[in-house]
């Protein structure tokens, strides 16, 4: 029951944002170029969800609260959902469904190439996120899902190459991303102190 409420809360929180954005875009509350704003927000949302997903394990170690891990897969799948919407929005609003142009963009624009690579990796992770794949892949599953670190790097590069004149926002996400990766270095991970001791083993 506790898990159910917690999971549902996370589900609703992730669901509300894009619904709200589409509504705002619809009524022109996002300005005169709503398609572009929507694509940008979904892209940033993808990055933020990836960072949140990657924060679950360090948070669990830090606090000893096991519930962080309970929502990790769901958050990862939300990250994938956002990137799917980001790509759909890009195809629809930026590309105008001009598939010939997509070929040109895929060859000529480094930030599109990097973004597409990250997307393909996310597809691989989403497809293998179920219990069946976990059992089938065994030890390899964990290795495969370390791709999320690569995805973070590609995502940050994709974002960096879009920046035109001010690196402030990008730097914020890059620092958080770097911190989350550093916390995974075994020598450092071992030293993460537990703030709360677990009372009873569940």
């Amino acid at each position, binding site marked *: 029951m506790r898990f159910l409420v917690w999971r549902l809360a996370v589900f609703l929180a992730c669901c509300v944002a894009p619904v709200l954005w*589409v509504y705002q875009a619809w009524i*022109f509350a996002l*300005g005169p*170029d709503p*398609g*572009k704003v929507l694509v940008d927000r979904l892209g940033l949302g993808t990055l933020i969800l990836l960072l949140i997903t990657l924060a679950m394990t360090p948070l669990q170690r830090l606090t000893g609260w096991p519930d962080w891990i309970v929502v990790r897969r769901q958050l990862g799948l939300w990250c994938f959902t956002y990137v799917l919407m980001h790509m759909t929005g890009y195809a629809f609003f930026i590309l*105008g469904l001009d598939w010939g142009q997509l070929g040109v*963009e895929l060859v000529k*624009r480094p930030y599109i190439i990097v973004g597409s690579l990250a997307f393909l990796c996310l597809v691989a992770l989403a497809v293998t996120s179920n219990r069946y794949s976990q059992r089938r892949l065994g030890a390899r599953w964990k290795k495969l899902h370390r791709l999320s670190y690569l995805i973070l790097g590609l995502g940050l590069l994709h974002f960096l190459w879009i920046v*035109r004149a001010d690196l402030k926002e990008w730097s914020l996400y890059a620092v958080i991303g770097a911190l989350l990766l550093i916390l995974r270095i075994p020598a450092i991970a071992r030293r993460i102190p537990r703030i709360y001791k677990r009372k009873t083993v569940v």
Partner: protein
Amino acid sequence: MLIKLPSTSDCKETDVTPESIYLSRRALLGASVTGLAVSALPRWANAADPSQYADVEPGAAPQWFKDKLASTKWQAVNVNNEAITPFKDATHYNNFYEFGTDKGDPAQNSGALKTEPWSVVIDGEVGKPGRYALEDFMKPYQLEERIYRLRCVEAWSMVIPWMGFPISELLKQVEPTSNAKYIRFETLQDPKSMPGQRSGFALIDWPYVEGLRLDEAMNPLAILAVGMYGRELPNQNGAPLRLVVPWKYGFKSVKSIVRISLVSEQPKTTWQSIAANEYGFYANVNPTVDHPRWTQARERRLPSGLFSPNVRQTEMFNGYGEQVAALYTGLDLRKNY
């Protein structure tokens, strides 16, 4: 034999109005009356209020600006059958990085910019250098309304009714010397009122600098603007004085100008300094030369709805080729983008 001599006042058979036209006379009359009313509307609206555009927020125009409204030449240049961008969009979707990098930042953060008093420095290769108070600087010029397409390098566009005067008239006043080959413009640098200039992460080396070749500046389409939509410029649109060069990407049209210099060497412009492979000195609107990160062949004419995207083909020189193409004969526009 009866010879019928028609009197001169008689109608001939060929003069008979066809029945269909006779029957549609009311529609015809209605249409022509509407046409008359529409064509008379701007002038009629002017009499009551200089702003003939819907939903324009009234500003607090300085006296010199109000004095010029009576003699303003309205619609001196217009666009054919293209809708003028709503005032709200033209003033709330801006690139003015001095006030932040988001499109809404300039509208939100430019309130602290003090545009009165304002002075403009004229220097370099001119016969009459000096620092002028804006009202004195503006004295010789009659305002003209110029309705221009604005094409941003980011592949969106608008149609905006500017009010200003040709740079060529300024050049007549300041008397460039024979050494003057380029004109250089500089935006205000004032971190106190411009939060973007306080950012430690900005890639721009303030102040913002732009420039034109002297013959480009002499082209009648190139203007210095002090107003838009029948009122003075809002701060986020580059008050109180900005450049408008409609056949070039928007970033050439430098805002909130404090210094105009005539120089002999091509000035080092802001975007060129940040990324020379992406932004050239000329920056002419050109659908055949892509920005390295996106195509320039098409543009989103704003407002562009979520489910009714307003995408159109970008025109060479933003549709002003007839007036400006001659400036670039013999110049390779692929290299000189």
